[in-house]
């Protein structure tokens, strides 16, 4: 099995497979309200802790809620917020990286030193501290995750802008009278895209994992919202009698994160991008 795993990793098939899995997950999260057999937050104490049945494909939790529906809706929350974090961190990193690399001088120094300081604080601890000071809640967790992630994009983009600035074709474009904006749009941004694709894919996995960790600690998504990390937090008390309550959501987190990591890995091999 492991040999097969190694085989598909090498080939193009891996990218396609991961992409397909992610498409399915995306469809699930978009169509969750229609796919789910039950209301994910409807409490029904007469049906609590039921084994799997036709009505409840994965059984029910301690409040009689349908586990299957909750897991489907969980995909929506995890993927949605991870995408939000990724897009925001990317935009912020893109903006700061390009400004830093293109303008240079003291602006560059200032921005990069702020980045160094941020990177000296372990990222999850920064988020925890941020949430601790600004108050527990989903908004703060997401903002904190964005604030620790932009640095990585900014550094990569800055480095590339710097190396590209020295290239002859950029000089040629400048001489022929292209504006700064045109140069960035036509020459610099297309060149950094492969690295960003790899980083972004890995970032999605990172964001899903950490968002669920925060929800597990009770700081992120709050019950009764069906988020996988929060579901593990709720299910852990039933580990002796109903271990599936915490096993299924964890499996989903792992599936999604493995897929994103494999996709990132395959993309970086495909494009010849070095991983951070």
């Amino acid at each position, binding site marked *: 099995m492991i040999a097969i795993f190694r085989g598909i990793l090498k080939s193009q098939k891996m990218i396609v497979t991961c992409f397909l899995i992610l498409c399915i997950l995306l469809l699930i999260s978009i169509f969750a309200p229609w796919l789910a057999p039950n209301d994910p937050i409807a409490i029904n104490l007469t049906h609590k802790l039921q084994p799997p049945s036709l009505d409840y494909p994965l059984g029910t939790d301690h409040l009689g809620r349908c586990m299957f529906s909750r897991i489907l809706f969980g995909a929506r929350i995890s993927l949605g917020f991870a995408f939000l974090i990724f897009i925001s961190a990317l935009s912020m990193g893109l903006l700061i990286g390009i400004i830093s690399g293109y303008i240079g001088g003291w602006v560059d120094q200032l921005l990069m030193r702020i980045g160094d300081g941020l990177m000296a604080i372990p990222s999850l601890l920064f988020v925890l*501290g941020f949430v601790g000071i600004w108050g527990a809640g989903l908004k703060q967790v997401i903002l904190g995750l964005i604030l620790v992630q932009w640095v990585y994009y900014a550094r990569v983009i800055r480095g590339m802008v710097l190396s590209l600035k020295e290239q002859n074709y950029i000089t040629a474009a400048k001489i022929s009278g292209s504006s700064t904006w045109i140069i960035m749009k036509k020459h610099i941004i297309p060149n950094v895209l492969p690295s960003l694709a790899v980083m972004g894919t890995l970032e999605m996995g990172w964001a899903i994992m950490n968002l669920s960790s925060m929800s597990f600690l009770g700081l992120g998504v709050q019950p009764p919202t069906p988020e996988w990390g929060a579901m*593990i937090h709720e299910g852990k008390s039933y580990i002796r009698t109903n271990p599936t309550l915490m096993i299924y959501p964890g499996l989903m987190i792992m599936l999604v994160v493995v897929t994103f990591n494999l996709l990132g890995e395959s993309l970086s091999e495909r494009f010849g991008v070095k991983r951070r």
Partner: protein
Amino acid sequence: MGSYVLKRIMTIVPIFLIATLLTFGMINLSPVDPAEAYFSAAHIQATDEMLEQKRHEFGLDQPLLIQYVNALIKICQLDFGISYVTNQPVWEEISSRIPATIQLTLGSLLIAILVSVPLGFLAGIKKNSGIDHFSRFLSFIGASIPSFWLGYLFIFFFSVKLDLFPVEGTGTWRHLILPSVTLAFPLIALYTRLLRTSVLENSQESYVLFARTRGIHEKIIMGKHVLRIAISPMITGLGMNLGNLMTGAIIVEAVFSWPGFGRYFIEAIFNRDVPVIQGYVVLAAGVFLISNLIVDLIQMYLDPRISRKGRQYQ
């Protein structure tokens, strides 16, 4: 070499200053008034006069720059203020709980090194063998598994089903096994991967070819020369990860009810106990920078080419 060491030490100072400045800024930009947070954490209904007096006591009526410099001087003396909840100095709260966390962290580091050094090394010298595939498989799983879930899986299989280890708590070495393995898992994934790549890269180096032409036995080339150099990225990874390990410990401690600092830190977050939060974040930044420094010095010892080249630091 001496000047190199000195230069390297000096790079830490500005980064640490920026990290403290960021923490300070994070607190001052927040909508929370420390005086109000103090009284709400202590469950006291404060009057305006009491708030005013506390603000004066905290030095909040002084200019921001002076507040920052005062805070910085205190941090350098390991004085992080007084916890709003317990009214004890934060440093005492940290230092009384941190030994358990260090025990857990060292345990997991030991496990991670014991597993990943042989695994990564063998995977690197026997590319595409069974052990190589296994190491890559483990790296992927280890990097993608949420540690809190892994912790509960361990509890479920080894404590509930097989009854081999206690579910939670502390005391004997058996209490330490499950939490440290949980915490070690992502490290094993990372270190195995780093060592494997590095061994593969180093096997292509000319010094290996030269040693082979001299007729040195393959085992000696790999075990003595390549391993010594190839282990370097792994040591860097170790230094880079010490901070993450401190955070990972917070989650693992929550899962296993380990009586370290992590559990206390989460309580502090819920209580908005600002001095405790600030203290630990600053401390973690300090530990991170110092551990990276130590790691660099170890590398310099292992690979003398580094200081000769006067390696540039990012």
